[in-house]
């Protein structure tokens, strides 16, 4: 069973002071794991400050679980050390790869939804979960193109999670962006996700760029995304909901607090 963490916020240094002042509105923090690695004394001090007030959950972006080879053992060791330091209830990354052919892309790239990819990804996810010694969650990503394969996204995700005994971090904003850009129904897509493995949810706002709804995390959450949160909440419990805001930080933190409060009500709207 997973602890119910409530409504959290992605920690960004730019919002440090208002986050600390608004601790009553924030149940937990998600920290970008790679931003704290390696664990220098200064970073340890910051984590000590954060964990004194909040449950902290490391969210990785560079484990490249979808790479064709094994994951970077040194990075996994560092993530494990970080998770131990903050006593994380779980650790997460994405259904993607970020390193291929010796090149670090620097951004999440979509994998091909095939049985072969699912098998390999499940093996990597399982090895990470085992080494970290904590539950490992994988998040569906935003993408602007799909590499043709024999599986649907939801089937692919279900296979990986089942084989690896990992859990789902459902980003409803990503589903909304993908549905908008590629022309499918977000609500129907979410119904096909393996919600029995849902542990955490991401919500965020995006902006339009060149006719594409970008998953830019730089705006308030849209009503369409809140509707998806309510839809999921109507089907299953959501142990943890997280608001992501990575850019265009508002001068008035009340904008963030407003989204946190909406998340709190939407996530329990059965």
């Amino acid at each position, binding site marked *: 069973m997973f602890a119910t963490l409530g409504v959290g916020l992605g920690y960004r240094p730019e919002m440090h002071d208002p986050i600390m002042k608004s601790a009553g509105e924030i149940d937990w923090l998600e920290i970008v794991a790679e931003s704290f690695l390696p664990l*220098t*004394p*200064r970073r340890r001090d910051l984590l000590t400050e954060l964990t004194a007030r909040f449950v902290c959950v490391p969210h990785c972006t560079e484990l490249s679980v*979808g*790479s*064709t080879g094994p994951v*970077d053992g040194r990075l996994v060791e560092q993530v494990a050390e970080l998770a131990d330091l903050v006593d994380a209830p779980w650790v997460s990354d994405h259904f993607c*790869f970020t*390193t*291929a*052919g*010796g*090149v*670090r*892309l*620097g*951004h999440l*790239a979509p*994998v*091909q939804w095939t049985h072969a*990819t699912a098998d390999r990804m499940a093996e990597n996810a399982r090895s990470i979960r085992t080494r970290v010694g904590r539950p490992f969650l994988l998040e569906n990503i935003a*993408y*602007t*193109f799909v*590499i*043709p*394969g024999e599986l649907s996204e939801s089937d692919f995700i279900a296979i990986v999670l089942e084989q690896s005994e990992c859990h789902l971090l459902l980003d409803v904003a990503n589903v909304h962006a993908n549905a908008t*850009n590629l022309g499918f129904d977000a609500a129907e897509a979410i119904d096909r996700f393996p919600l029995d493995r849902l542990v955490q949810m991401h919500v965020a706002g995006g902006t339009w*760029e*060149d006719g*594409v709804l*970008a998953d830019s995390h730089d705006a308030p959450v849209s009503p369409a995304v809140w509707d998806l949160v309510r839809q999921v909440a109507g089907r299953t419990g959501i142990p943890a909901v997280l608001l992501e805001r990575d850019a265009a930080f508002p001068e008035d933190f009340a904008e963030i607090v407003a989204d946190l409060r909406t998340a709190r009500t939407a996530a329990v709207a059965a």
Partner: protein
Amino acid sequence: MSVPDLLARLLTRPGALEALQHRDTAALERELGAEPADVAAIAALDPDAVRFYLRTLQRKRFEMIEAVFPGSLPLAREAFGSDRLADAFWRWFQPDESVAADEVLGRIAQAWTQFAGTVDPDRPWLADLSRYELLRWRAVLEAVPSGPARPVYSGDRLVPAPGAGMAVFAVDIALLARTAMAGEPVATAGTHRLIVWFDPDAGLRVVRLGPSAYAAAEGCDGRRTIAQVAHMVAGDRKPAAGQVVDVLARLAAAGALRVS
């Protein structure tokens, strides 16, 4: 060849993306260095969607290196726009596939340092600023934790703290802070001496020294005593020698020098 490898090549070889745009399968195979059967999945991609993803990718790359270049990169971005700058930089810098993933950021950082000098002839200060930022970054990477500062006693030997480095730059950091960071060209390029070291508690420290103070710090070679350094810099002038000792004591207290 795996799909991730092919996609990585597609995203780093402009010729491959051009081939995809023109639906030229033969050229795509050639650019990707792959067999026809391997390329099928990539050839089916929407080139406009890939280009949009590539722009996002470039911005993310810039976000990564912004940690290394917190001054020059945002200034260049502000001047030229994210997309234009990203396109220009990535066309200029073609990553070598043989570079280990761990080294990519370092390669990009070095490339940015050179690129910043060519991005605009009217903004030569961008190159100066990027060189300084690269040095700061290297100092952090190469830093070795230093021990706690101890009081300085006359007669003891001083050595630079582990991780400390002294160098002469053709830029004035304080001037850069006032002018280049505000988007103004550096008015004069003097030769100011810096001592750079890593303090495990405070992070990277940079102190600008006057000629006498720099000579004093440079005299700390692990063999001379404090008194010998003071004499080397100030001669028989006792007040000046006292000032040298005071400078060394302050540097030691800050963790830049250690008593051996």
